[in-house]
């Protein structure tokens, strides 16, 4: 599978999947594709169908209404498939993490996908509310191995 992910480092075609977000992250995705930031430098192309996509950009906390459609779209993407969770909502649920009508972030979605036997090869998480277009470019550069990741877990003891 590592070899298959290596193949994805050429150019990543992305499918944009809005799962109940407030449209701020979606506008930032469009901003990243404009000539000013120009994500197409890295071979990124927005495609209309998940069947053509290498990576799925997931924005928003996955609402219960959108959950079946999200599962269908992820299932339709060919292997190896990457899931990129954009924004606080998709990463950990954001301010909707404990509401009744959302699944609460990509972690819960992965559990549901595992139950149904749908495999996702890599999950990338881009926190931000909303994300900056540069943060999306950074995530793409991280997938392609151009930059090193900066965040690391910290455990500190105060006495």
């Amino acid at each position, binding site marked *: 599978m590592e070899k298959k992910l290596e193949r994805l480092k050429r150019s990543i075609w992305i499918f944009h999947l809005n799962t109940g977000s407030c449209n701020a992250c979606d506008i930032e995705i469009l901003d990243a594709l404009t000539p000013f930031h*120009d994500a197409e430098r890295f071979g990124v192309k927005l495609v209309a169908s998940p069947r053509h996509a290498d990576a799925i950009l997931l924005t928003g906390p996955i609402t219960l209404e959108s959950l079946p459609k999200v599962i269908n779209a992820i299932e339709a993407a060919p292997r190896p498939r990457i899931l990129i969770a954009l924004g*606080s909502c998709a*990463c950990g649920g*954001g301010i909707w993490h404990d509401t009744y009508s959302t699944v609460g972030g990509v972690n819960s979605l992965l559990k549901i996908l595992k139950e149904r036997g749908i495999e996702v090869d890599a999950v990338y*998480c*881009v*926190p931000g*509310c909303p994300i900056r277009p540069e943060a999306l470019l*950074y995530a793409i550069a991280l997938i392609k191995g151009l930059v090193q990741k900066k965040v690391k877990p910290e455990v500190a003891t105060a006495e």
Partner: protein
Amino acid sequence: MKRVFKPVELIVIAGKTGRVTIKYPFEGPLISQEFRGLIVISPEKCIGCGACVNACPPNALEMLESPDKKILRYYIGRCIFCWRCIDVCPVGAIKGTTEFELATNDFLDLYTYITHSRAHCTCGTGGEPVRMRRYVIEKAPIVENYASKCPDCRKKSLINAVSLRKVGFVGEEARTS
């Protein structure tokens, strides 16, 4: 004829404008100093009072409790970078940065833990963190007498004091009579 020269005009305009695309991952991002990015909690200053936990809208800052420890957990994946925790922190332990390059492929990278040990009451139950007790005593010297007691013991001592004044004796006898 005009149509033929259209591409040439466009080349002239493009030449005047120049390159607009930024070379982002290979050069610095376009952020101002006012940009609200990642918060950094200093374990040296934090007293574990939980003011940030109350203020946090998406519960990105959470207090995990056990009898011996209080653990402040910061999950970056849920943080909306509103910086309200910075406003409410009484000791200024939380600092804001302009860091936004937080993409990762492992969810465990997004957690920060700060462990506080609890100060124990004389009856054995765990109370507030040691540092918070020290902070409260520094702020208000009179509380030294009862700051080391848990809420139950404090209530009991108050009832005893009242009963001593009203009835004349303390302890179980006061409650039964």
